[in-house]
């Protein structure tokens, strides 16, 4: 059975690119547009991995991660954040909020899959 990845990003371009890279690698992809939408989607899905952006309207990546980690059903789902290279602060903040790992934007599909493999059971 294919693993499911939930991607959360407000940029349509980014969602399309994630969808492309992940489906090519054989994952089933489920999408959301921001943190609020992501939590809504989670009420009906149990992804194996979550990939989320940080800068989003309504609820940003940090808020979303905290929301996921505070929900018993999804506490143990690995979460990878999309971050820009120089953002050591953001990486750290995401980790403290409960992120499992990160992917640097613009992302290399190979690295994306490698990162997912490192966290997805």
């Amino acid at each position: 059975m294919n693993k499911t990845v939930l991607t959360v990003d407000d940029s349509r371009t980014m969602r399309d690119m994630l969808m492309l890279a992940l489906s090519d690698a054989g994952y089933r992809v489920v999408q959301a547009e921001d943190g609020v939408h992501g939590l809504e989607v989670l009420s009906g899905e149990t992804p194996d991995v979550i990939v989320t952006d940080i800068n989003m309207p309504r609820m940003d990546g940090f808020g979303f991660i905290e929301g996921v980690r505070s929900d018993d059903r999804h506490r143990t789902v690995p979460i990878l954040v999309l971050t820009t290279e120089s953002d050591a602060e953001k990486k750290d903040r995401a980790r403290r909020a409960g992120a499992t790992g990160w992917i640097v934007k613009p992302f290399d599909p190979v690295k994306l899959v490698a990162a997912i493999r490192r966290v997805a059971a």
Partner: protein
Amino acid sequence: MDAMAAIKQTFFQECEEQLAELEAGLLAIQDGGHDAETVNAVFRAVHSIKGGAGAFSLDDLVHFAHVFETALDHVRAGKLAPSHEVLNTMLRAADALADLVRAARDGGAVDAQRCEALANALRALDPEAASDDQGAGDDDGLDEAAFQPVPIDESMFDDPPMQAEPRLNLFTIRFKPKAALYAKANETAVLIRELARLGETTIVCDASGLPLLSELDPEGAYLAWIIELLTTQDEAAVREVFEFVEWDCDLDIEGDAASAAPDAVDVAVLIEKMQAAVEAELSALTPPQAPQAGLADVGVDADQAVIDLAKARQQKMTQGAGEPTTQKSEQAAAGGLPQATIRVDLDRVDRLINLVGELVINQAMLAQRVLEAGLARASGVATGLDELEQLTREIQDSVMAIRAQPVKSVFQRMPRLVREVGAMTGKLARLVTEGENTEVDKTVIERLADPLTHMIRNAIDHGLEKPETRAAAGKPEEGLVHLSAAHRSGRIVIEVSDDGAGIDRARVKMLAASKGLIPADASLSDDEIDNLIFLPGFSTASTVSDISGRGVGMDVVRRSIQALGGRISIASRPGQGSTFTMSLPLTLAVLDGMVVTVAGQTLVVPLTAIVETLQPKIADVHGFGGGTRVIAIRDQFTPLIDVGRELAYRAENADALSCVALLVEAEGGVRSALLVDAILGQRQVVIKSLEANYRHVPGIAAATILGDGRVALILDVDAVVASSRMDAAFEQLLATAG
């Protein structure tokens, strides 16, 4: 890659949306809306553009966006106050960003100097000294391994294919997760699995830290592992596996170049070797209470693997990744949330509208045939047809609504235009818009942009005075251009007004006379002078170096409005400003019309133009010389236009008394009475373009197919009225001259 090309297109579409948000947000902040969400939205817009641009390697765009984003981040963080000047710089930067996006999309060139100058201006806004804060290098967290030696268990093997490589490295990895690692949903088994893909592993688990079950915290971390890895990869590759967890564990990696291994490796021998190595390490450990740097003596061999690691790993990955599927999950299906909007190809909508138009025509024809077949009005067929007509109407309305769009998309381009024209002409101008959400069919919207652009340009170039002049006149230095849209009696009315000097009537009259458009001594009303600017050939020498490179006059504007089936008029007060009013049909596809006969021909007159109908009485009709006639309507003399004669259906005037007169209002509120033979009825007709299928015919706007299958021409009321006035004026001139 086709999919990437499609995503690139999506990216550019998204850029346009982001650019619009950016501009709107910056303007809102400038107007005083300081709220955090607007600032965030502005930041995100540039951030998104930068992100996507990076993915497509659009370096110029990335570079500029990055500088812009940094400046916005300062505003967002409260370190840079969004003053008026700061925002002006940012607005200009937004314009430059838009140019860069479009150049990237269309392959054009950008003024690199301007961009660099703006980038410098943005950098200069940095409140701190320049230094780019490179985050401190990742803390490796290489604490000493601190755990008890334990008897060695046999452990699980992974047997990945060995690379035929001369150089093998032997790494000893000590890995002790902390509770935080698990809390972040990292999994040791997964990590070890990934590690195992790099080479051959021997894994030993140290469970000595496990407390009694009664004391066990299910979320605690008690286990540790010693892993021997024989691999051709280097230490960096090994460390990369632990990239995410380095802060949340004790990790120690020691490397040792193994001797050159033959092609076939005797695994048992290898295990023994590894076990021996581990035992040797363990015995060298001091007790846990005093973690020492004793292990530091072991050097780390950092020899690089010769083989192309990335390729090998990638190969493994694609093999291990499961059957690749080409299914793309539908966003709507996956979401579980109903989407508020969907994207539809415009072609499909256009096709649908055409089909519905044909449906309407067919339904009308069917109704006609049924009528002719003599079926009783109350018969089942007739009632069925009535219901069909109702349904068809509803379908038509719904379908037209699909294509209706708010004029916002056209209005959105105007603020930038105002900034640029203002800068070019040295005038200060501010744009205020109203009614952006007024909806109009897409076909109309697309053709609105040009006329609106010209009108706003004119308003600033000719209407508004220079700041000094305005100040001297007691006006605020910044001129106001007001753009509004509203629905009014079945049409959309768009107004462009400015609070400038109004039309300089003396100058206009003189210019017109000098160009031979009017006789030098003609006496004209204020209104008539104002309308002179619409005459072909009138365009005043413009000082504006036209952005699009074309100099256009108001006559072109008027013709394009008229081509849309609209009207344009002007009202001007000297010293106070001018207002241009455009009235356009809501759609170019369908029309409510009055079906009339003229000289045996069937014509359709747009209902929106008709004020009332009347039967001329002998006392009211008067000759005016030269074959022109007027009709008295409620004591006002109104020109009586013989449509049959205007359209050259016949040469002689019809007998007014046996005809019907339609009182129509043309552009500028001018009223005339159109003389037609008879009125057949009123109906909604589908407009079929004559130009598309034949060519432009003067006096005729379009054509349609009636229920009986005949073609009926749709009258262009304004054109007919205008041409009859010209004829009348001409004949009058002849009369007076002769």
